[in-house]
């Protein structure tokens, strides 16, 4: 007997090349079977997903989930698992000094599967007014390496925010080098946050290693392209080398003009993340599925959009064996979505709006084989 059967939905699982109406069975918290038709009598609980889209549990690779310490932090479950995201990665809200409380009070208690990148600044992101790398003494390699090793089960790498509001121009490369040094000491990835007019992205990507991530890559300037600038050869080479270009929409880091140029240049994002935070959760970001819908609207295939929030981030995070897939034996994380039709207005981080005819919405979320039901807790 299966514990749960998700029945009759269109299963999109790019990790297995599946895009077809299938049933998904879960037992003991793991995916048990994905087949064209599974007998309902074999399941204790049945979730009808007819006309719905069934994906591996969505992964948001860029969130801020440390409210009360990080100025951008949001309650992790309200913004993630309740919105279809079973796994989220906090990107540098905490640094080595503030990580222990983040771990104890959020990571270990949240219903959402939470991972983190440690900020190379040991205080993390506390103030929106004073950059955490304004004083480079905060960029402490040893403390970061130690915290990374101690918390390797949940810390996947190091975050370095390299925009002009966070770090002085002259310190950028030093900060990045420290981030890489700390990450290397525990085998983690580095994610850089980019964005200022003075620093072309290709001057930073040359320093990254395969598997490292550029977030905010589709911003108005300082990203992979702009309304007036095509994707340069250096960035294609960086991608060929294995550098990951992530969305990280956020309140200030995603431009429809850039998306249009990049997609016209056949330079899709590798991963789609929301960077949802206190200053974007009430718009223009709202959540991950809205962010996905924007890329769908600008012409990406649904399969690709789903890959960018399932298989692809799982691999970047080094968790592809268990997450971001519906292969039998993997974690029983499943998101049921509806692709609604109508008239939807989307807004980018520059205030530009567009009208779309479709939008993804979360219907139900299953994590570890259990339907997320906060109203029954």
């Amino acid at each position: 007997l299966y514990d749960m059967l998700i029945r009759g939905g269109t299963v999109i699982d790019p990790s297995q090349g599946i895009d077809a109406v299938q049933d998904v069975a879960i037992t003991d918290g793991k995916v048990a079977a994905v087949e064209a038709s599974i007998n309902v009598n074999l399941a204790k609980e049945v979730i009808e997903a007819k006309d719905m889209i069934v994906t591996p549990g969505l992964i948001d690779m860029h969130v801020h989930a440390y409210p009360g310490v990080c100025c951008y932090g949001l309650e992790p479950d309200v913004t993630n698992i309740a919105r279809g995201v079973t796994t989220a990665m906090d990107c540098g809200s905490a640094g080595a000094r503030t990580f222990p409380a983040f771990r104890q009070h959020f990571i270990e208690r949240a219903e959402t599967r939470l991972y983190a990148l440690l900020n190379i600044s040991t205080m993390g992101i506390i103030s929106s007014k004073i950059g955490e790398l304004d004083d480079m003494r905060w960029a402490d390699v040893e403390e970061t390496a130690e915290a990374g090793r101690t918390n390797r089960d949940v810390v996947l790498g190091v975050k370095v925010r390299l925009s002009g509001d966070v770090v002085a121009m002259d310190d950028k490369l030093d900060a990045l080098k420290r981030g890489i040094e700390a990450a290397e000491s525990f085998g983690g990835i580095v994610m850089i946050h980019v964005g200022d007019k003075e620093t072309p992205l290709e001057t930073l990507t040359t320093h990254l290693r395969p598997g490292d991530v550029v977030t905010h890559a589709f911003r108005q300037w300082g990203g992979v392209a702009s309304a007036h600038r095509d994707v340069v050869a250096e960035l294609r080479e960086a991608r060929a080398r294995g550098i990951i270009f992530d969305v990280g929409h956020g309140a200030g880091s995603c431009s429809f003009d850039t998306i249009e140029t990049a997609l016209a240049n056949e330079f899709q994002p590798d991963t789609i993340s929301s960077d949802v935070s206190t200053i974007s959760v009430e718009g223009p970001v709202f959540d991950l599925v809205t962010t996905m819908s924007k890329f769908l609207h600008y012409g990406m295939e649904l399969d690709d959009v789903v890959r960018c929030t399932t298989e692809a981030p799982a691999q970047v995070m080094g968790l592809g064996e268990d997450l971001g897939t519906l292969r039998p034996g993997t974690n029983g994380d499943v998101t049921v979505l509806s692709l609604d039709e109508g008239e939807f207005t989307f807004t980018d981080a520059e205030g530009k709006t567009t009208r779309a005819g479709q939008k993804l919405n979360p219907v139900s979320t299953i994590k570890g084989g259990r339907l997320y039901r906060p109203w029954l807790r």
Partner: protein
Amino acid sequence: LKYDLLIKKGLVVDPSQGLNQVGDIAFADGKVAAVGSLSDGDAAEVIDATGLIVTPGLLDLHVHVFPGVSHFGVDADHSNIGKGVTTAVDAGSAGALTFPFFRKHIIEPADTRLYSLLNISSTGMISPNIGELEDLRLADVEAAIAAGRANRDLIVGIKARLSRSTAGENDVAALERALEAADALGVFVMIHVGGTKSPMEKLVNMLRPGDVVTHSYHGNDYGILDDAGRVIDGIKEAQQRGVIFDVGHGAGSFSFDVAEKALSRGFNPGNISSDIHIYNIEGPVFDQVTTISKFMWLGMSLEDVVRLTTESTAKIIDADGLGTLKVGSVGDATILRRDEGKFIMTDSVGRSVTANEKLAHVRTIRSGRVYRP
């Protein structure tokens, strides 16, 4: 039954009522219900305190209990209510930006009754390597006032750590900002002194009656004594006009030598606090009861040291109903034992003394209930 709890036959030491005599105390509905000679049959639970001391629940004006964000932090309940302190004031571990988390995840769930002094630095105390007031932009008066107003039930004052290691050259400017925020909120300022850029006298002169100097008996540069070991006139005058000189023992801020000289000249503390934190909880501080025992070794009476961690402290934080066993007040009490023997006690500069008596914590009652974690 009339009472939930009855503590029988202890030596009741309650300076707020001038009590120092054997008697019984009863609690009902979380409050002190009766003091005197009371009957066992009226109480659901009876504790025999024969040979023990019963005081109002102890208050510690200077603790650090924000572990995981502030590097100084220790677990709030282990270090306070578990050691006889029913009410503790965190002294600046959190600033305006980190207070929301501190409130929700530490203060509200704790069994210890916690209050806070908001650090004038909006990050609070995060790193031992980088001082929170080295960059004066962090001393954000507006942010402190807004956080203070939003949390006026818990924030009872403003903390400014003025040593060079925390404030660089900014001691005067940081204190000005702390006073501005405190004025707006109608609360006191606590300054941490020792190794400041400015002489202590200059900083203390800026304080208002009711403001607090912690680490008063430190042995570092710019203390309360002159080169001849006399209390500096300006310091004495400040105490006379109502500035409170608190102990704040800590890992580096209490010298038996300084305290001996000061006390011999009549310069007693206005409050005794431990400054308990991760760097001194395994010694030399251990806890608040050990700290007050050190002042007994220095010659103060039991009644005086109890007053300086009950009635006096409650008055500083303006907490009505705490620090007293008056009938109708909050039902917090601490049961202590006065042990005799040989006890080695060490200050923050490595001097050890051998005392022949020491107070030990026996039990804590909070809101009329025995604390049984």
